[in-house]
């Protein structure tokens, strides 16, 4: 309880189950990436004091989670953005780094303006800035203002989380930041957008109309599908992972949306189930995304490039990184028995049960469609990480740097190994972890009749990952041992068959080629642009070389954001001509102002 700088303002703290959960996620991941930073820092330029900024970044994130009133929350929130902005600017010599940092900070600042307006409307309703007061007066505010507050909050927190229409800063800022920073930003910082959204829709506002949940579900589904589609089209490893953060935020939003909709319809059990799905996925995504970004950082420092088309054959040269990256890829593709599958399973269950128990057809169909979108996302995620892992680690190295790559130091391998083990552990211990999360979520957020968050879906369908984790190795061993009964066989090493000629790296499938079928199948959404340049040998019809360049049209950047900024700048240029330099015009302005003032004063 500190006296704030404005009259009637007091800085308070509020630590309940939800903030404890997020604080735990923040501390654990930042500890691991901190160790990784010590190791990885050697390879990259970092300005003096970046270590201190890193600690301030973690401290600011903790501040956001434990803030008890709007002012402290905003101070911590924007400090977090500012410090991460500075860290993103580490390699400020490159133009795209400056542009990415600028886009990042401007969008975050605009988001903060939305959050400030939402907070002030809430303060207008309850007459104070302290969160506890807001919860007390939650049911007092009328529906109209509550909806305005909800939409403002959704835009503000959604931008920070990287929800689809507001996500463009994420794939620009994360790849250029140093590996440990983007691991922390992607793994943990965007979750604070989810934290804000949860507080808004469960603590500070009374159960609103069903369209709130539907809106979040729609945006979540869009984020998931488009996120993974754009990830598939990327061949820069870190941009691919950044787009995957958008996808996973979409999956978390599906959980949150289902919870909000269930709360509007008064289905207590579903709220508990959906909340557990969202929160469990928050923890899981923090784990495997940080792991994958650290892997990408390791590749970047070992090979010197992140372009998938110039990697390859790293599994033999960097075995440990490959192993942990494989575990991370399997986890993010939601494969049993890892943690990704557990939280996605929960999300599927909550969507299905919500669909079943919702009364009118239209509210029932949306969750089920969202389930279909989640299924599509899951399958595309598998495709994307087969590409990411396969093209970068397997077969022949596609460039000399990749061939000369060497395994990174222990300081980088240990954090990756711990997170890989954590993925497996979270998967196997899914049931106790989810029940623990259930006890953390404050009762206020659950409607009175909601049971504790258990893995058992209310109406059937159980998942015991340890069981499956036991069955898989046993049957695997059987598959390898039983044929031995038919006698020993030998394995001879030979060249891969390449229609009779010696295999070169150029024969291998590139990332672009791997994603081609999916790019063509989804060309209406992704709108690929392709240009082929054929160079003939001088004067003859014989082709000397063919240049193939393909990229996907940045729909959101071009048609939404650039259109907006261009119009704004054009308007500014027109208004700028008002200052035309002539004293006579300025005196005319003054005289006009006087006339207007006198007319008003009549």
């Amino acid at each position, binding site marked *: 309880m500190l006296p704030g700088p404005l009259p009637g303002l007091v800085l308070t703290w509020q630590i309940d189950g939800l903030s404890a959960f997020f604080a735990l996620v923040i501390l654990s991941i930042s500890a691991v990436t901190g160790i990784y930073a010590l190791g990885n820092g050697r390879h990259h330029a970092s300005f003096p004091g970046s270590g201190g900024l890193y600690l301030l970044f973690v401290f600011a994130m903790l501040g956001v989670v434990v803030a008890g009133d709007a002012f402290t929350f905003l101070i911590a929130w924007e400090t977090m953005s500012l410090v991460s902005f500075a860290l993103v600017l580490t390699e400020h010599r490159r133009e795209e780094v400056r542009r990415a940092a600028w886009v990042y900070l401007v969008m975050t600042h605009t988001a903060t303006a939305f959050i400030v307006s939402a907070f002030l409307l809430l303060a207008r309703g309850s007459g104070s800035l302290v969160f506890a007061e807001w919860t007390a007066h939650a049911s007092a505010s009328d529906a109209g203002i509550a909806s305005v507050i909800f939409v403002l909050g959704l835009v503000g927190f959604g931008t920070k989380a990287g929800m689809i229409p507001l996500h463009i800063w994420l794939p620009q800022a994360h790849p250029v930041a140093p590996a440990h920073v983007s691991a922390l930003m992607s793994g943990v910082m965007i979750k604070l957008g989810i934290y804000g959204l949860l507080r808004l829709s469960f603590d500070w506002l009374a159960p609103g109309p069903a369209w709130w949940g539907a809106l979040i579900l729609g945006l979540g589904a869009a984020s998931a599908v488009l996120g993974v589609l754009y990830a598939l089209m990327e061949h820069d490893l870190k941009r691919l992972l950044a787009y995957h953060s958008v996808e996973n935020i979409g999956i978390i939003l599906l959980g949150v949306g289902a919870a909000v909709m269930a709360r509007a319809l008064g289905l207590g059990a579903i709220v508990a189930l959906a909340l557990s799905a969202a929160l469990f996925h928050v923890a899981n995504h923090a784990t495997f995304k940080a792991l994958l970004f650290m892997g990408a950082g390791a590749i970047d420092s070992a090979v010197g490039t992140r372009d998938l088309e110039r990697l390859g054959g790293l599994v033999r040269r960097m075995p440990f990184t490959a192993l942990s990256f494989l575990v991370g890829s399997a986890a993010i593709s939601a494969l049993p028995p890892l943690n990704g599958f557990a939280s996605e399973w929960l999300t599927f269950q909550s969507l299905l049960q919500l669909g079943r128990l919702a009364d009118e057809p239209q509210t029932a169909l949306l969750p089920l469609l969202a389930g279909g979108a989640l299924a599509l996302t899951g399958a595309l995620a598998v495709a994307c990480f087969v590409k990411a892992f396969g093209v970068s680690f397997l077969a022949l190295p596609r460039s000399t740097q990749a061939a000369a790559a060497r395994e990174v130091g222990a300081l980088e391998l240990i954090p990756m190994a711990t997170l890989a083990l954590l993925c497996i552990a979270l998967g196997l211990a899914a049931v106790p972890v989810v029940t623990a999360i259930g006890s953390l979520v404050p009762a206020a957020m659950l409607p009175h009749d909601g049971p504790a968050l258990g893995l058992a879906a209310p109406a059937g369908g159980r998942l015991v990952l340890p069981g499956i984790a036991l069955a898989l190795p046993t049957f695997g061993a059987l598959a390898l041992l039983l044929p031995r009964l038919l006698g020993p066989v030998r394995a001879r090493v030979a060249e891969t068959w390449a229609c009779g000629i010696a295999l070169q790296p150029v024969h291998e499938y590139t990332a672009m080629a791997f994603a081609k079928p999916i790019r063509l199948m989804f060309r209406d959404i992704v709108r690929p642009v392709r240009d082929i340049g054929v160079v003939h040998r001088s004067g003859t019809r014989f082709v000397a070389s063919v240049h193939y360049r393909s990229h996907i049209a940045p729909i959101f950047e071009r048609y939404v954001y650039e259109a907006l900024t261009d119009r704004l700048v054009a308007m500014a240029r027109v208004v*700028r001509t008002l*200052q*035309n*330099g*002539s*004293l*006579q015009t300025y*005196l*005319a302005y003054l*005289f006009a102002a006087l006339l207007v003032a006198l007319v008003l004063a009549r």
Partner: protein
Amino acid sequence: MNDAGAVVDGLAVALLAVALFSVTIRGLVAGVWLLVAQSALLALVAATMALWSGATHMWAAAFLTLTVRAIAVPAVLLWILRAVALRRETRPLLSTRHALILALALTLIAFFAAGRLELADAFPAHNALPVSLALIFVGLLLMTTRRKAVSQLVGLITIENGIFLAGLIATLGMPLFVEIGIFFDLLVAVGVTAVLTLRINEHFDTMNTDQLRRLRG
């Protein structure tokens, strides 16, 4: 008693005539001399009001008007013009005929506006106040239509004279030390502007303010 009012009204009309005449002429030196005439008339108005009200500070105000507005300021202006050897104003933005029509229109507006202000019983000169507003508007017209720096300065001083006249009519002049402050201000303002005008002429070899339009945006 009312003869004082009549005298002030007469002087006010004369002032208006001088102002309208200054809109039409193109010569800079002539403009300055018209300014002298304006200030002299103002001094007379102040003197008659001093007679009428018998307030001592009115005499001081009259004396100050004479010394500062009628003698000191025009002297500075003439000194500038002689230093720069400039005689004629370049073609102003508005042709003489249009300027005159606009000036008359502004005077009508002044009379209409003064009527609404209903500053009734300060001093029985019923058309002195509209003239002061007319002076202000004509001053502004001069500033916005003339190109030479000096003529813009003449316009500015015309506005100041108009306000001084309004002050005299409405409240028989401000308190004395405020009056002194305002005169001191006027003197310093003209001094600083004179220095600036000389520097502009030295740098641009002309007093034409069209050169001063490069700072944009």
